């Protein structure tokens, strides 16, 4: 993309119930990251460690689905503050690996993880319940089941090329449609 922009496009990113793999894949665009730095300004994002929104953003990239109350709160803030919201990666688009817990009742999950697991040592005899900890949801939800999502970019993670292609389109106001070899669910 060669066009010269005077003002950078503000984008925000976050990782909800994800593994940061999608963010790593974004860094994997190699030297194109210099081009990206000229085109966009990262606002609220782990990339620049800004924790809150101070200004509206043109694009919000969401990695991860919603597994707890804090994820829901963050996702809603992104919907409020971003013109275009994109679910990035399988966790955001369909729940992904965290959603494997949807196949087991929550209580059973907690029991296995914190009480009965073969390698568990937990003298308190109950799952962690510090008030600081966000409450778990009954299930892990893909983002579009919580707020309206404009585009979905699947992949675990989406390849650097897929992310780059999507960003290029979004920055030029086009719909991010992926060519066949870049649309992947794995």
């Amino acid at each position, binding site marked *: 993309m060669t066009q010269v922009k005077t003002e950078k496009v503000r984008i925000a990113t976050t990782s909800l119930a994800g593994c940061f793999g999608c963010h790593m894949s974004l860094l994997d665009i190699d030297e194109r990251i210099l081009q990206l730095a000229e085109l966009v300004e990262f606002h609220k994002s782990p990339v620049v460690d800004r924790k809150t929104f101070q200004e509206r953003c043109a694009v919000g990239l969401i990695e991860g689905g919603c597994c707890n109350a804090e994820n829901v709160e963050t996702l809603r803030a992104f919907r409020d503050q971003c013109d275009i919201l994109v*679910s990035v990666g*399988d966790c955001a*688009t*369909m*729940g*992904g*690996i965290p*959603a*494997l817990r*949807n*196949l087991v009742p929550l209580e059973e999950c907690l029991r296995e993880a914190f009480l009965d697991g073969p390698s568990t040592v937990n003298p308190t005899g109950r799952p962690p319940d510090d008030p600081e900890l966000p409450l778990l949801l009954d*299930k892990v939800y*893909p983002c*579009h*089941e919580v707020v309206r999502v404009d*585009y*979905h*970019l*699947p992949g*675990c993670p989406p390849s650097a090329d897929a992310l780059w*292609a999507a960003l*290029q*389109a979004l920055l*030029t106001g*086009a*719909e991010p*449609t*992926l*060519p*066949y*070899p870049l*649309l*992947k*669910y*794995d």
Partner: protein
Amino acid sequence: MSDRVSFTIDGTRVEAFRSQSIMDAAMESGVYIPRLCHVPGLDPWGSCRVCTVKVNGRFSTACTQPAMTGLTVENDTEELNDLRRDLVEMLFVGGNHFCMSCEKSGNCELQAMGYRLGITAPLHPYLHPDRDVDASHPDIMLDHNRCILCARCVRTSRDLDGKQVFDFVNRGSDRRIAIDPGARLKDSDADVTDRALDACPVGALLRKREGFRVPVGEREYDHVAIGEEDGVDPVSDLWDES
């Protein structure tokens, strides 16, 4: 009466024998109608509905509808592909499909159909059904989470392997593939050489210790869309438009 019939699919003239289905006639003429449960050489089954076409204006499954002279068949239209997208999305949310950790990924017909139709995320609510895995057999695994109830294993075992290893039990959303009632795969006469294993379009019936043998990038549908295996580059590079 001649035993040849002639009709059109999306305006292209197609010839067929009187007893052929629209699907088989289309395949012989090199016209691709999307399909999941139909396999040439097996009796038609008609369960996935992905082959739905419009025959003289009415919805019909191409794999079960006989070809007749004078039919006007619509196939590759926006309306029908939208409908197919919904059907395929429902197959995804009705089971438990975690492609990122599935041995069949890259070689799976359901996933490939999702790619072909440009599905970026199934938007129907996920059902997360409670299904089990039968890993009792030393060489074969049956993962009900990924089964799309296409009966390709049932028909192949019965008609090509000359066995009857698989059949269905229960109805509606409880329907599932079963070995003899109550039995597990290890109690059946399923064998690792059975053609039924190759018939499964998804990662439900798998040979053990074969997963991930083909590297990413060289799998069946990594570069070529399902239905375009004969070499034509399938999906236009939509990217160039922007």
